[in-house]
């Protein structure tokens, strides 16, 4: 159902743009292809990794480290990992979804996803160069704190 909606939306948007400006829309397809080429291998890698994680890692390990029994430490761990690693969100969502299904805590998954997109330790030097050290530090630090808050609220709401 949801998938069909997206297909319909994309088809509609594409048709509309096509009639407005053919060349522009044709070049958008080239952008799509470029994007596909850049993400094909990483996506394959992450999907295969999911297979290994779910196939080899016992469910108890997942629930002990980032499950409900891990409590706040699990959430904090997920937030720290999300802050450090630099993977694109669309690759991370399938992984996060699979962890959620295997018994990870809602809060931990939310913390991971939120810090992943908002906090970037690796890109911090670049951000500091662009906006100043103070700005970069506080933007990331505040994002980290708010990510934890968002995660805890989500854990409380979605049981």
């Amino acid at each position, binding site marked *: 159902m*949801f998938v069909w909606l997206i297909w319909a939306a994309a088809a509609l948007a594409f048709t509309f*743009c096509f009639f407005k400006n053919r060349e522009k829309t044709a070049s*958008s397809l080239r952008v799509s292809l470029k994007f*596909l080429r850049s993400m094909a*291998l990483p996506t394959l890698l992450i*999907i295969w990794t999911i297979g290994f994680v779910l196939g080899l890692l016992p469910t108890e390990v997942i629930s002990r480290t980032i499950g409900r029994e891990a409590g706040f430490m699990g959430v904090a761990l997920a937030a720290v990992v999300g802050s450090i690693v630099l993977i694109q969100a669309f690759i991370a969502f399938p992984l996060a979804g699979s962890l959620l299904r295997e018994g990870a805590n809602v809060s931990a998954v*939310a913390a991971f996803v*939120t810090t992943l*997109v908002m906090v970037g330790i690796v890109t911090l030097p670049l951000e500091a160069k*662009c906006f100043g050290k103070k700005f970069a530090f506080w933007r990331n630090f505040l994002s980290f704190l708010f990510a934890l808050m968002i995660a805890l609220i989500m854990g409380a709401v979605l049981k």
Partner: protein
Amino acid sequence: MKKVPKVLFFLIGLLVAQLLLAFYYPLRAREILLTSKTYLLEMLSILPPILILVGLFEVWVPKSVITRLLGIASGWKGVAVAVLTGTAGMGPLYVAFPIGVSLLNKGASLFNVAIFLCVWASIKIPMVLFEVKFLGAEFALLRLALTVPAILLIAALLNTFRLNTSRIQGNL
């Protein structure tokens, strides 16, 4: 070009692990492939329309338009423009850094630029669609609903303390 060999390296590692498993624990190996197949099919079912949307966004909302719109807008309109342009942008956060710098130089407020950066980082329409697909609508929409006020608060705090002191101030 530099990234590809690294990914390939990991892929070959997985292939070796898969073959070893297939030899010693054939059942486990089969299970791994079946799980991966399920995820691969899920991914493929949603990927083509997302790719089309990504391409359309990139071409129809170019960075120059974002800069022009945000450079002149202010007040609540500025906030709205910052949010909308942030969601339309594509690519990882570090792509947005130079845009943010040129926005500051063009006179956009720090508040709006901070919003723009945070929204660019966390809220993108194709990404929200991905999140709904793999984590569920409840999860994705609740996270979205909590992220928006969080971004406004973060931007307000950053703006209050005028934290871009070291470099940008000299340019302005």
